[in-house]
């Protein structure tokens, strides 16, 4: 039966699923060593990339929407009005990853993507520039507002993939870092 490593905001969950004893239709989950009984009932029809369910964890209710992102292993979970980004891996693969010393997430991010669709108003950096965290890199006009796209970390600009006055779609590559 499956065992997963789930990472949320740098907190790790070791989750082991198994069928509960008896034909109860419930599942036994071990979450970081703690056992609980889990039930889940689908809500409505399953849509591609998204499922909705009523989940009961030891009879504690939670209505959740789980949505798969474009990146494999990344999901977002809508619960109590808020959306929580989640990374999920098979336990064994996560162990291998850790042995190899690779970390999850933003540490290896070298591409700045457009967080919204809009028009490029200004490009404030050029290839070779050393940039500081929080520095404005690009200004995009969207919904009549000027939005400054800032550096998430210190780094060096490798290349620029946009031009002033051109429109960009959400997720388009803007700037590449070394």
């Amino acid at each position, binding site marked *: 039966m499956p065992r997963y490593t789930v990472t949320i905001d740098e907190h790790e969950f070791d*989750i082991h699923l198994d069928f509960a004893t008896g034909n109860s239709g419930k599942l036994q989950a071990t979450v970081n060593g703690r056992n609980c009984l889990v039930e889940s009932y689908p809500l409505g029809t399953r849509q591609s990339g998204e499922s909705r369910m009523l989940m009961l964890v030891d009879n504690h209710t939670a209505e959740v929407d789980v949505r798969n992102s474009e990146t494999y292993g990344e999901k977002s979970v809508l619960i109590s009005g808020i959306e929580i980004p989640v990374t999920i891996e098979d336990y064994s693969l996560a162990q291998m990853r850790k042995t190899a010393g690779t970390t999850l997430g933003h540490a290896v991010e070298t591409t700045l993507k457009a967080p919204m669709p809009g028009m490029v108003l200004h490009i404030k950096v050029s290839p070779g520039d050393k940039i500081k965290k929080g520095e404005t890199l690009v200004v995009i006009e969207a919904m009549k507002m000027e939005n*400054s796209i800032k550096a998430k970390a210190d780094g060096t600009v490798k290349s620029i993939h946009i031009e002033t006055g051109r429109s960009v779609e959400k997720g388009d590559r803007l700037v590449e870092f070394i």
Partner: protein
Amino acid sequence: MIKQIQKILIANRGEIAVRIARACRELGIRSVAVYSDADKTAYHVRMCDEAYHIGESPSAKSYLVQDNIIRAAKASKAEAVHPGYGFLSENAIFAKRCTDEGLIFIGPRPETITVLGDKIEARAMAVAARLPVVPGTTIDEKDISKAKEFAVKIGFPVLIKAAAGGGGKGMRVVDALDQFDESLKSASSEAKSAFGDGRVFIEKYLLQPRHIEIQILCDTHGNYLHLNERECSIQRRHQKVIEESPSPVMTEELRHKMGQAAVDIAKRAKYVGAGTVEFLVDKDGSFYFLEVNTRLQVEHPVTEMITGLDLVKEQIAIAEGKKLGFAQNDVTINGHAIELRIYAEDPDEGFAPSTGVLKNYRPPAGPGVRVDAGVVIFSEIPIFYDPMIAKLVVWGKNRLEAIARAQRALDEYRISGVKTTIGFHKTVLAHPRFLAGDFSTRFLSEEYPDNRYSPYDADLAEKAAIASSLDKFLSDRRISVGAGNGHSKEQSLSPWTAVHRKNSLKQFRGSR
């Protein structure tokens, strides 16, 4: 002369168009929607009795095209035009055009809009009406040295504002002299692109002001009333995100003084209709005139919740030439109301707009909850317009009940497909300073300098971890439960039962 209006064209979209259509329907007035390409099936179109296409998706090619709106009004034989907020609502030329074409413009007279819409002229009128104003001056673009001198004299930070501004557009805070030129340039260019008018002026930037505004209502018979205050200090990028009434710091004495000041400028402007006089209130309780908004405000529902009035119906009655049906003494405050603007934005990414289709949308309900939305499930939040999804308005017998109710309603709200500001609101409402009512317009930048609004919640995180495990388990095994086949008995089963049965079946057959 009283003219009963039979049909109103709503020159707007989104939640405010829906809001106005609702008032029309209750009054037995027929409503006419206008829509752009992007809004063909928008909720406001569904909520109106008639609908007319007015152009392409960008608002400059549809909702801002006066000819097209006038044409739709004529074609539908509407007698009046309600402009809502934004778009043409504070456009004096459009107001005059309506009047010239024999249409009733539901709003103040064009001359009033012209004077009050120009922040420089409005300031002068406030001074004439003996309202206190923040020190400030106009900027001559050909010689900005005088403005710089003035800024140095009153001391930094100063605020550069567009004369035609609104909604934080064309506004910049300048912390030091060396930023002056760049801020001036970007404020002016933003103002020019948003309003077609690049004139700007500067004002002393108060360090810890509250933004408190007074709702006014004036008929054509010389009755000028105020409907108490709205506290709108919780702002980001000078845009309001949480509003409430009454203000947690308001005293009966200050309310009387500010209300009187609002009525004074309304009288001076011979104001007609609903409007809002905005003030900055300093820590010591002194207040300064900011501007007059000559339209219905986004946050008008909080006033409706505590006064029991319907401001859109009042606007229509005033436009019909009726006298206000109540006097200042009849205006009371019942309980406490809070409005939370739910935007399709990512608060953790500096409130970047998040466009897309609402894959799930279920608003909260129950006692004391009102949701004014321009969307339903599967609605699209287009890139072309303001990314507000809805206004969640709650009422409580006092402020604490209203806050608890707001938290409850936010928990109930389910929106997926776009990022929203729901989590942001939950975080802010729980902040000790918000609970204590101890905040200024700087609250968000002071308390959340890194734009981090999603604190880690161990209980929710654990549930999310379990849910994602279940989802992965189910989808990896390609078990579709209840998908498509309405006749399947398994649809009503727990997926675990289904998994269990399939597993048993596999074992029984001896296959993998």
